């Protein structure tokens, strides 16, 4: 903090400002980081200690029992596999559709562009609701297939608008005209000029969509009937339910033990389900910030 910036000595007010800055940022950092850390230590601590509020800085009576229990469910691995599959295929479809549609809608000479845009906006404000959606998915024959999780939300309106705005702002008309004079058609221009200049928006889209696929369970709950197709989140949810409410057991001691096991599993599950994304995030972080900015400039 004593280090002068650019060799210019800091005034007293500057120093005070810096100190305050560090204090505030440290507090903000702790506010965000501590809950994450707590989940990690709670997932390997004695559930009684967690319950009594004694787990604060270090794990108490470390145990991997919770994880052992979680990984003992075979369905967990099926869930992982399913989620991975849904996320990969879903994100690929999402990104291709959103980027191409966003680019097309960014071009002024697209006939009927405003009408299309209005149609898109309309769905942002009004939607059919759960039951009509369900009926639609059923009659399209998508029920209990992974397509029920992928196709209805193939293009997110918000992301589409973010993409369109990005293209409007970064691909000037003159660039296309220059390419056109050289004999480059629309497809060639899109593939050879637009895409290479769009890596940031593509990364943002991958991140947005992948996260939402990874975390989604609600559609799976509604549209999937076979447990073998359940995504990770749904599997975890079921494991949790099984481990907390077992009406068959009347013995109070067993019930209490199960209650504790349920708590332990809960924290472990948070780790198990979010670790892959946490690992991925640092690599995409800078794009993530960019994407939020694009959305922020113009809706």
């Amino acid at each position, binding site marked *: 903090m004593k280090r002068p910036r650019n060799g210019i000595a800091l005034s007293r007010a500057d120093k005070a400002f810096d100190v305050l800055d560090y204090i505030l940022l440290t507090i903000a950092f702790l506010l965000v980081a501590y809950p994450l850390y707590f989940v990690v230590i709670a997932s390997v601590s004695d559930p009684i200690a967690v319950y009594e509020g004694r787990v604060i800085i270090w794990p108490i009576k470390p145990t991997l029992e919770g994880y052992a229990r979680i990984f003992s469910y075979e369905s967990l691995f099926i869930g992982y596999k399913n989620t991975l599959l849904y996320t990969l295929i879903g994100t690929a479809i999402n990104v291709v559709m959103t980027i191409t549609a966003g680019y097309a809608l960014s071009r002024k000479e697209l006939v009927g562009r405003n009408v299309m845009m209005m149609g898109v906006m309309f769905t942002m404000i009004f939607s059919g609701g759960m039951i009509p959606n369900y009926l639609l998915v059923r009659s399209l024959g998508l029920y209990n297939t992974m397509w029920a999780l992928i196709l209805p939300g193939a293009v997110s309106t918000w992301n589409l608008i973010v993409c369109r705005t990005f293209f409007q702002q970064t691909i*000037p008309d*003159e*660039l296309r*005209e*220059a*390419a*056109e*004079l*050289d*004999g*480059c058609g629309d497809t*060639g221009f899109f593939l050879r*000029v637009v895409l*290479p*200049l769009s890596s940031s928006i593509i990364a943002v889209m991958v991140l947005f969509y992948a996260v939402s696929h990874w975390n989604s369970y609600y559609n799976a709950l509604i549209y999937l009937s076979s447990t073998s197709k359940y995504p990770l989140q749904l599997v975890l949810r079921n494991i949790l339910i099984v481990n907390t409410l077992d009406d068959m057991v009347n013995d109070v001691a067993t019930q209490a033990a199960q209650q504790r096991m349920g708590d332990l599993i809960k924290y472990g599950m948070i780790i198990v389900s979010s670790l892959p994304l946490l690992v991925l995030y640092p690599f995409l972080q800078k794009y993530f910030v960019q994407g939020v900015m694009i959305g922020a400039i113009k809706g």
Partner: protein
Amino acid sequence: MNNEAVGVEIRDLVKTFPAFDDKKGEVYAANHVTLSVQPGELVTLLGPSGCGKTTLLRMVAGFLMPTSGEIFIGNREVSKIPPNKRNVGMMFQSYALFPHMTVYDNVAYGLKLKHMGKTEIRERVKGILQLMQIENYASRFPNEISGGQQQRVALARAVITEPNVLLFDEPLSNLDAKLREYMREELRKIQKRVGITSLYVTHDQSEAMAISDKVIIMRSGKIEQAGTAMEIYARPKNQFVAGFIGKANFVRPDSVLSLSGGKAEVELLGRRMTIDASEECRNGEPCVVMIRPEDIKISPEGKFKARIISKAYFGQYIRHFLDIAGQEIEQMDFTQSNAALQVGDEIAVNLVTDSLRLLPLDDTEET
């Protein structure tokens, strides 16, 4: 370039856009424009912002469909032919270089699309980069070179495919004043060396005068006057043209005694004289006399009495604002012999009557 130079001819070209304010109206961005560019010539479209220069250029390039009219490149009518089949090159205001490609790849792009052999492409690109003096930057990206260098890359890219016609849309407007003056000479040199027929758009009158074989003055989608810089400067047809090219005082004559055959007898600033008149002047309609600031000479034997209202020193000349017969008139003195004059001095001046010109009064607000 090995192509025979061809000319460009535009006949009765019209382009309308729907007006923004009221739903029914139309804006004429090109209002029955007819013009021609001789083979190898550089013609400038000069006019204020919004007068339709870009629209006209984009119609020649093929990015815009004319509402009606014809465009000939050589003896081929091109208005229904797509841009890449017209054999035109264009230099854009923003340069429009591909940011993710090196200078070399930017320039080579058009040749690659024409499926030209690798070695031939390399030869051609090398040659053109040398001509533009940017061969040392071939492997840089556009954001790693200066504005003037980007400019040259843009020009190299525009001419590499050996187009018949080169179009420029205010290519210098993003450069600072010094570089702009330098680059316009460069552009002109290269254009002459390549011998390519060129249509050049600008709103900067000195740029237009510096580089053009012919200048075309536009206003609100219409051509006001076409000719060499000298013709337009000396014999403008109307007040708009006179004011747009160079500086001019416009003084209402006390009376117009006669008007015929391009000559007029007027009473001006209290004196009777015969001056040239524009063919657009009509008997009985209001007129003004154009007096260029350099056509007022300070001289002890001067016939007009004047008082100096203000004075500023510009190096090559001194600018005075004079009160002559109650009118405020700008004067430029290139002689350096009147430097001692002070504000408030009573002096005498002469008018170079040969250079004065009677023009129809322009009562529209646009300039």
